[in-house]
């Protein structure tokens, strides 16, 4: 255990004692204690005879570095990971495009099952083809992917797929499974003085970004596809936008460097298309009437050279 971790662990133990004190007075219910206190990750760890795990609601699961995460904690984690992604590649500097993506995204979010998360959407300045979701509702699309998107329905399909990951907490569960044992996620200090520039935010971002390099499971990706087409359809978009994007990505040669990480971390577009064809019922065809109002997309996202 590094010196820093010991310091954080000691801080946690002090906070846990305080929480335990509150609990003893009957003022704080266990769920409140969990949402306002440190989430962290000292599974089964005991310090000075005081079991942190039981005091702060940490899971004892052998495979999980830390346990249940409340929604406020999930949101705090997401902020750190989103800031981390933006540390790797900044936002594209085009306010009209960023606002457009946020309008589409927030509209979709109303049909996601988690409408009240603090949803944020951004285009990041990277030529690679990819999209990312963080726990808590931050969703990013790379400029490289935007260049291969033809329409608002296709954009909606991509955003809704990412929303599927958030709704099903795929990344959150991935982090819980894969974070190294003994890792300390001091979420309380994320909210406090440290902020996004602090050590705790760095540690959370590091774990989250590792997840984007590793990729989610094939099952998670397929599930997000299936949820995404339904969210898009519920929001009034034709449900085949994601299908069109996957067909476009299928045309890019495997050797194309801009596709390397995407192909490494996702099932092949061909497999995803086969699964969607199997799952999407013929009744969806009636939800796909032409909508000329959506030609507005081409005014904001102008094809280069026009």
């Amino acid at each position, binding site marked *: 255990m590094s010196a820093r971790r010991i310091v954080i662990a000691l801080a946690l133990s002090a906070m846990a004692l305080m929480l335990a004190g509150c609990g003893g007075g009957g003022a704080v219910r266990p769920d409140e204690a969990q949402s306002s206190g440190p989430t962290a990750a000292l599974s089964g760890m005991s310090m000075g005879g005081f079991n942190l795990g039981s005091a702060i609601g940490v899971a004892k699961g052998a495979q999980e570095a830390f346990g249940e995460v409340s929604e406020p904690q999930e949101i705090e984690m997401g902020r750190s990971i989103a800031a981390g992604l933006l540390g*790797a590649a900044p936002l594209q500097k085009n306010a009209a495009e960023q606002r457009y993506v946020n309008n589409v995204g927030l509209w979709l979010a109303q049909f996601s099952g988690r409408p009240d998360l603090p949803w944020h959407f951004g285009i990041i300045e990277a030529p690679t083809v990819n999209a990312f979701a963080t726990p808590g509702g931050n969703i990013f699309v790379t400029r490289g992917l935007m260049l291969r998107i033809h329409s608002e329905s296709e954009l909606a399909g991509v955003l809704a797929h990412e929303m599927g990951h958030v709704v099903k907490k795929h990344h959150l569960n991935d982090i819980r499974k894969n974070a190294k044992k003994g890792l300390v996620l001091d979420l309380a200090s994320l909210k406090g003085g440290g902020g996004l520039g602090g050590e705790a935010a760095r540690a959370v971002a590091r774990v989250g970004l590792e997840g984007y390099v590793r990729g989610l499971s094939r099952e998670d990706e397929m599930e997000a596809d299936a949820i995404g087409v339904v969210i898009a359809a519920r929001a009034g978009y034709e449900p085949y936008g994601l299908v069109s994007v996957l067909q476009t990505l299928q045309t890019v040669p*495997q050797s194309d460097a801009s596709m390397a990480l995407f192909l490494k971390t996702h099932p092949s577009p061909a497999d995803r298309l086969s699964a969607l064809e199997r799952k999407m019922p013929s009744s969806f065809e009636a939800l796909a009437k032409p909508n000329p109002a959506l030609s507005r997309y081409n005014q904001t996202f102008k094809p280069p050279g026009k």
Partner: protein
Amino acid sequence: MNMRFIDRKICGRIGLALVAALSPLLSTAEPAVTVRQVELRTTPASDAKSVATLPAQSSVDLVQRQGAWVQLKSGKNTGWAKLFDIRLGAAGSGSGTAGKQGSGNSLSETLNLASGNRGASVTTGVRGLDADMLSKAVPNPQEYAALVGYTSTKEQSQSFAKAGKLAPRTVEFLK
């Protein structure tokens, strides 16, 4: 942008701005391949009259997309098929055809790239957001604040949806 499919007289009438808005819908001519035997139909409907029957692996041009349907051109025949009946790209190209590599040619791949994205500026071989950059990144609070600054309110997104004629629908999650 290819304008072959736009009637010149219509162009004159509806004006350049509208053409600019609609031309991506009208003039998308991308190479594609049928993945099964396909009936080309007169309209985008399963009960529409068949124009022609194309065998699997036929090379076609995708003229336009319309929801679950695509309009295809094959020689002299033009008609509608299901989106899932085709794979974009010329025969043998792309990332989804492992095992069939090598039959594509550089010309068709050039065409795919030119039509498969919004422009010719997609870069190949340029370092983007890769594993190394993700692993080394540290949070950027200023950029996160900028992200939050672009957030829509629910009211804004509702107005946006209304302008786009997007009406909520009840749709069950898929099995």
